[in-house]
Structure formats: C-alpha cells, structure tokens
C-alpha cells in the first residue's frame, strides 16, 4: 500500500476509474460535478475587486458566477494540495523547473520565452473556457459522462483545436 502511494505514476486506467468513482461521490454527497474553470474566473474577479473595489462585482458576468469562495473554488485549491502531496511523497516535486522537456527540444531552454508563451496560452485558454462554459474537467469529463450535448460538442472541439494547434507549433513553427 505504501509503495503504491509513493509510486510516481499509476496506470492511466486506474487513475481514470478513480476519477470516475470520485465523480459518483461528488454527485452523491455534494450534488455537484467535478469542474474547475469557473473558479479561475471568480479569482480573476476577486483580484479586480481588490484593485478597483466593489465596482468590479457589478460586471454582469461576475454577478452571474458570484465572486465568493464556494465548493468548486475549494475543489481547485484541493487539486493543488492533492497533486503536491502525491508529488512530495513520490519524490516528484519539482524545484526550479521553468521549461518542459518537449518545449525545450523544439524552442530551447530559455525560461523567458516559455513564460511569455505560457501567459499568452493561458489568456486564450481562460477566455475559451469561459466562452465554452467549461473546460476539460467540467465539459470533458463531468459533462460527457452525463451525456450532455453541450459537453460532447465541446470535448470534441477542444481536441480538434488542441491537436491542430500543437501540430502547427511543433511541426510548422518549430
């Protein structure tokens, strides 16, 4: 059991089944699907509220999603914590790692370029997630497993957009 917890990686099928079972419990106990991207929008709104004050909460979108720490926000905080715990006990916690290997193999190991591209990618991702009304968790796993039409369409187009762009980045630009 201990060696299982300290293993760096598990079978992707074991992990997937685990996430599936977790989704049962989440529905049964909390009545909610596992989803993450709204919490980023709430955090963005809370930061704006810290900077410009209450006026930020008047934005129609922030009125819709409500700027407070809720169940899903704590879920995202939990994801950071859970991944940290798994990484620490399996000796996989990274320090000083700015540039992923696959990125470095095509674009070199400069941290600045990688960070600038990551910011740019994050902007597109965050905007797209809210545009689509969900992300790889909310639509891609929780929505598709409920057979939601919106989620099946989203999940398919997430991967179409992602696969085309990744090929463009690594086989055309690089």
């Amino acid at each position, binding site marked *: 059991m201990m060696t299982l917890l300290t293993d760096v990686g598990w079978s992707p099928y074991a992990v997937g089944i685990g996430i599936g079972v977790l989704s049962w419990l989440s529905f049964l106990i909390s009545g909610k699907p596992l989803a993450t991207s709204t919490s980023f929008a709430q955090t963005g709104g809370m930061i704006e509220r810290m900077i410009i004050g209450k006026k930020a909460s008047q934005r129609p979108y922030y009125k819709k999603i409500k700027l407070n720490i809720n169940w899903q926000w704590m879920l995202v905080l939990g994801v950071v914590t859970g991944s940290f715990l798994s990484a620490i006990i399996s000796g996989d916690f990274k320090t000083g790692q700015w540039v992923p290997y696959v990125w470095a193999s095509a674009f070199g190991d400069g941290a600045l370029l990688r960070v600038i591209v990551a910011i740019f990618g994050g902007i597109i991702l965050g905007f797209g997630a809210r545009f689509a009304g969900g992300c790889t968790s909310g639509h891609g796993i929780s929505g598709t497993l409920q057979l939601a039409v919106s989620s099946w369409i989203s999940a398919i187009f997430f991967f179409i*957009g992602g696969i085309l762009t990744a090929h463009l980045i690594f086989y055309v630009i690089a």
Partner: protein
Amino acid sequence: MEKQVQAAPAVKDRRPLFFGLAFGILFGFLLHKGGVTKYDVIVNQLLLVDFTVVKVMLSAVVTGMIGIYSMKSMGWIKLSLKSGSFGMNVIGALIFGVGFAVLGYCPGTIAGAIGNGYLDAIVGGLAGILLGTWIFAVMYPRLKDGILKKGDFGDITLPKLLKVNDWVVVVPVAAMIVLLLLWIERSGF
C-alpha cells in the same frame, strides 16, 4: 425567511467547502498519479504520440457515466447539465483548444501542475488564465446575446435529444469507449 437564515453568517454551513476541498485533494492526487499534471504528457497527447490523457479521460467517463446513470435511475441524484449553443461549444471550444496546446495545461491540470512545482504553470499559465477569464468578463455583455446564443440548444442530454431511454445511449457509448481504448492499446500507444 430563508433569506434571513442565509444572511446570518453564524449559521452558514461550511461543510460543503470541506467536502469540496476533500474531493479536490483526491482529484489532484489522481491527476498527478496519472501524469497529467505535466506539460510533456499533455502536449504529447495533442501531438498524438502519447495517449495517456485520452486513456485517463475515457476511463473516467465510462466509469462515471455508468455510476451516475445508475444512481439517477434509483433517484439518488439529479444531473447537473451545462446548457450550450453552437457558438459557445464550437467557437469557444476551438479557442480553448488553441490555448490548451499553447499553454500545455488546462484549468484542472494547471492546478495540479502548480502543486507539482512547475514554474511555467505558476508564473506564466496561472496569470494568463486569470487574465483571459477577466477579458471574457469584460466582453461578456457584448457576447451574451450574440455569439453565445448562436444555435442555442439548452441543457439537453443525448438520450433527450434522441428521445430514447437513457440506457439506449449509455450502453453503446460505454461499449464504444471500451472498444476505442482496446484499439488504442492494440495500436501500441
């Protein structure tokens, strides 16, 4: 009456927050064990050379779907569906896909990547995502009655759309996913 109870902070039920945190810890633990808190694994999936992400997602979907629809049949749970439109779920999802490949993480896996210590996720990706959601919030009043409403179809499920019993869809979808996973394994991925 109910409003008054909600307004009093002393009686606010904090249990949902603890459950959220607990489910999140398990979710993050699993994401890390699955290797999907790593840029390399995600980008190699999008480059179609490593199928870890698809294996994790599809086995979660097939497991989740059977359990959720069983519990729904027994009346234990209600579905929680996102309504959608072609504008949102085609255009929005394509934009998301571009960001997915450029960043190399998605919102759930970047939370995991942050816990895993990856600095491009912490310094670059997180800031970008927060900024991107804020830009959406600023543009929302101009988008909500236009592109986001284009081809609106509401919060329907595939069984509702096809006007059939839930299991008429659940069983073939489950079988299709299992076959797809077997095929991926057979092809050596």
